[in-house]
């Protein structure tokens, strides 16, 4: 393994917080695959029924009036406005960036979104259009969405995105390796990409739809966080099952436990299939009730989405106008 040990690791299995790590605000060192396997294996299993019931219960919370308006604005500021199509053109990215800067052309008080998310070849163009604004450019890399390429190809992919001016890298893990139990390989890949990124934010996509079980999601979350991820992200949006509320709950629990154990705060990004403002507000409720209100910032939680933004704007306008508004009030993406 690539990291050199500096502090001892200790497993505590008697309580639910399975992994107890020294609270020194630094990443624990992982010396061997056996050690990593031991750490992940010692994580307690997820109570699937409990997680789903809790997520369903939290989904019934209702936000009204000024709280709803504040939550809608917060959700807008957390959006990674995404276009990941084969048909993407510079023109399309230009209009996406314009929308990212000023989501509602008629309402300057609407916050900008957190980032635009594009393929690496369009990063330079997005960077140019966004200029010195606060909106970040995120690039999907490491042979997105399948992650099936040699390490050399993945490294080159990331390098190109970084050279083009990406502020954030969304990498995919090798699900095949993870499911085959080659945790060390997945870990090394994330570590290598993080080293390449340096201070650039690294989001690690777990592709929860392919991991199948909540236990795997919890293990993959910890693996990514131990390897140095700044964000863990649910999905690519390219497979049938994307982000779900219970999965997000499991990941947020992992993030919370990791912060307790290490003092390091890792963010969560949910992506794929979140189209309505109602869904978005449900995620915010789960974030607040699981990780805590300190995660309710664009540094702690993100939505990867495209059509979601228009629904957030529509609901926002509805709150102000008192009448339901037309979907074509806002530009398409």
């Amino acid at each position, binding site marked *: 393994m690539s990291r050199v040990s500096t502090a001892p690791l200790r497993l505590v299995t008697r309580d639910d917080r399975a992994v107890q790590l020294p609270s020194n605000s630094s990443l624990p060192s992982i010396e061997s695959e056996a050690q990593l396997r031991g750490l992940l294996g010692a994580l307690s299993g997820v109570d699937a029924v409990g997680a789903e019931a809790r997520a369903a219960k939290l989904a019934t919370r209702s936000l009204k009036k000024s709280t709803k308006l504040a939550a809608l604005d917060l959700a807008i500021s957390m959006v990674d406005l995404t276009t990941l199509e084969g048909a993407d053109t510079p023109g399309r990215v230009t209009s996406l960036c314009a929308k990212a800067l000023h989501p509602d052309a008629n309402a300057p008080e609407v916050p900008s979104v957190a980032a635009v998310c594009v393929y690496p070849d369009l990063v330079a163009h997005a960077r140019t259009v966004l200029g010195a604004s606060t909106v970040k450019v995120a690039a999907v890399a490491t042979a997105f969405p399948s992650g099936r390429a040699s390490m050399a190809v993945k490294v080159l992919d990331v390098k190109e995105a970084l050279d083009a001016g990406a502020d954030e890298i969304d990498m995919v893990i090798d699900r095949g390796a993870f499911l085959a139990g080659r945790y060390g390989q997945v870990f090394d890949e994330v570590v290598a990409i993080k080293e390449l990124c340096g201070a650039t934010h690294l989001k690690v996509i777990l592709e929860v739809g392919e991991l199948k079980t909540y236990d795997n999601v919890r293990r993959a979350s910890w693996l990514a966080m131990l390897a140095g991820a700044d964000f863990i992200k649910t999905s690519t949006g390219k497979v049938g099952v994307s982000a779900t509320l219970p999965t997000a709950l499991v990941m947020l629990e992992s993030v919370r436990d990791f912060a307790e154990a290490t003092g390091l705060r890792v963010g969560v990004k949910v992506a794929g299939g979140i189209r309505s403002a109602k869904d978005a507000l449900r995620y915010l409720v789960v974030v607040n009730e699981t990780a805590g209100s300190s995660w309710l910032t664009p540094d702690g939680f993100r939505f990867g989405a495209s059509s979601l933004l228009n629904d957030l704007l529509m609901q926002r306008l509805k709150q102000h106008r*008192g*009448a*339901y*508004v*037309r*979907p074509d*009030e806002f530009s398409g993406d």
Partner: protein
Amino acid sequence: MSTERLEVRKTFKLLINGAFPRSESGRTYEVTAASGTFLANVAQASRKDVRDAVVAARAAQASWWSQSAYHRGQVIYRLAEMAESRRDELAEHVALSEGLRARASQLSVARAIDRVVWYAGWSDKIAQVFGGANPVAGPYFNFSLPVPSGVVGVIADQDSSLEAFVDAVCAPIAAGNAVVVLASEQRPTPAVLLGEMTATSDVPSGVLNILTGRTGELAPTLCAHEDVDGVDLSGVNEAFADELALLAAGSIKRVLRPGRGDASLARLRAFLETSTVWHTIGQ
């Protein structure tokens, strides 16, 4: 085997996007017959049901209009076929709701079904009657084509539970619109039954959405909804219609005022726009 069975009780549901949900709010209200006795429990729609219905209607309208006019007529005729085989049930509810004798209610249902057939026939004649070829000074054809407004909100007549309902609903649908209709508040059951018949008559999901509930609560939301292209207020009294028309004026809408909506060509024309097309004259 015992001949006694448990009564199969029915709650009259909404019709939204081809499904028969209870209200999103979970509310129901009691409807009484004209005699004052209990008639049925009916879903009491909320503003969010209005919103959902408009979304469904918007999604359905383009493909409904893109079907051939002949086919749309066939589908509406099929609704008449379905209603014909459930005439007795409709007549029973019309009689109870409106306090009619059996014979009178049978006649009312027959007229309503005949009206459905009439609108079915109009579907592929609208273009000829309301459209035309215009003479222009140049080597062009110039056509006026009637096209539907889009999504039409209807506040149904409060007294005539089926006949007026058929007029208000079938006219815009025959013209290629999708409809969200608030059925009569106190006499909604014949309308709900007709909605059930659309499920077996190939009327595409979302083309007809029927809401039951408090007209005073729902009509303002429907009329103010900016994604509704026209509202039919012909079943509303003048004072309330003024109020609703004001709400409708917040966004550009066609408004059919009270007293203008008898079964006539005016009703068919109410939710049509005219599209003008130029075309070069070929060799």
